[in-house]
């Protein structure tokens, strides 16, 4: 599946939710099921510090693909991270660089990526793109 197709799949999954409660409950569930980053990789260097919550992001490059694992101390943030990992992990650097992430807006979670939230998510996306650029060089 392409990034676009995975994004479309997520949009469809979210389309069944009529109110925010269901949507948040689903994110909480996703957050709980996200395979967390290995303790040994929860390093200071992998930490993205927001005022609201902390996010850890680890990247590995193997056979032309980037593998991401991530974690957060806040569960809703973690739920959103799990969506981002699903979209971005096991992709080529070029795919990642070109992704536009419109699906976040479509599923109504745009506010969580606003710079004012300071929850580390925006910085996480930036970091993912930086990894992709570094590995494409």
């Amino acid at each position, binding site marked *: 599946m392409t990034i676009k197709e995975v994004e479309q799949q997520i949009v469809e999954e979210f389309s069944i939710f009529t109110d*925010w*409660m269901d949507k*948040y*409950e689903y994110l*909480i569930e996703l957050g709980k099921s996200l395979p967390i980053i290995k303790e040994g990789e929860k390093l200071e260097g992998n930490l993205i510090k927001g*005022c*609201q*919550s*902390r996010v850890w992001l680890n990247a590995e490059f193997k056979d032309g693909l980037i593998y991401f694992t991530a974690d957060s*101390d*806040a*569960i*809703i*943030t973690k739920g959103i991270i799990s969506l981002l990992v699903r979209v971005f992990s096991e992709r080529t650097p070029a795919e990642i660089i070109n992704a536009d992430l419109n699906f976040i807006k479509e599923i109504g979670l745009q506010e*969580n990526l606003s710079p004012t939230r*300071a*929850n580390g998510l925006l910085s996480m996306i930036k970091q993912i793109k930086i990894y992709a650029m570094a590995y494409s060089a």
Partner: protein
Amino acid sequence: MNKIADINQIRSLFPALEQSVNSKTLVYLDNGATAQKPKQVIDLVNMMNSGVNGNIHRAVHELSSKTTELYEDSREAIRQFINAAYREEIIFTSGTTASINLVAASYGGKYLRKGDSVLVSEAEHHSNIVPWQLICESKEANLRVLPVDENGNWRMDMLDNLLDRSVKIVSVSHVSNVLGLINPVEELIFKAHAKGIPVLIDGAQSIVHIETDVRKLDCDFYVFSGHKLYGPTGTGVLYGKREILDSMPPWMGGGDMVETVTFEKTTYAPLPLKFEAGTPNFIGAAAMLEAIRFVESIDKKFLENTERSIVEYMTEELLKIEGLRLYGMGESRISLFSFTVSGAHPSDLAMIMDKMGVALRSGQMCAEPLMKRYGVESMLRASFAAYNTIEEAKYFITSLKRAIKMLS
């Protein structure tokens, strides 16, 4: 004039409270960060922006004299409000942060020497830590910390030892923006003065909840923000005893703060203008008068009773919640409550409760050292103002319980 003693009448003065958020009636409990504005404040700002607008202290034209008069009337109202002795002891700033920076740079710049100390408490807002660190660094002075105990109360038993001859100024909050406890500032001021050390009181939170009399307190400086006291954003006050302010050099140079300027030597304007360089936020400062009029229009007993019942209800209900830890347990507190719930991240709780229409503060509260003291990364805070009702407190508790359940 009859004082207002009816919560609905108070609420009707605040247009912001009528709005819905996420299709729920707004329950605004982030007053510790900033308060909503009553109509009379909004009206005065609009009136000035719509026409009564001329730069203050500068011109002879009608608009300039009108704005100057409004600005100076507000200064006088603030003087009376905090019972300062002289109008020139009231300096308009852009907020508490600017007020503290002014004192740190000007007073600290003049009086701190290598090896001297500045004493703050462990429960300070970053704005009462960092300005002192900046000046201490440049003067090779030290920042000393008065610790708080597990309940958030100042370790007064340690005060005598900390207040040695190296301390040149003490700067502490009357009420911490995290703990909500009313600190024993009178005792601290008395002890510091006994050793000849001046004291700055950060009143950002307390001015809204406690009647303030700077002469009775006998503090040397008292600082607060206008926007937390129902006034416009970008307004603040520095009160300082006249003889101390007189002895301090200007902090910022510019127009309005000078007497004569030549390239060789400039002499400065007398107080208060010495510290008000450039065009100040004169519309905001002028509208502070209306904010104070609003506060004074409310019956004091009514305010006290409402706040007491909110404090009693909130403390009791919060402590009933399993796994909840309330920070700041002491004899007297304002209606501001910071807490954590085990197993539920503050940011998650705040996000869910936002969807329920409840506006809260979550995060490090601009008090990272205090977060470290309690071994947490962040907290959740509910802070009340004069327009908040006991019904809102009840809605808050119900929403909190629901949010915790969602996360467990």
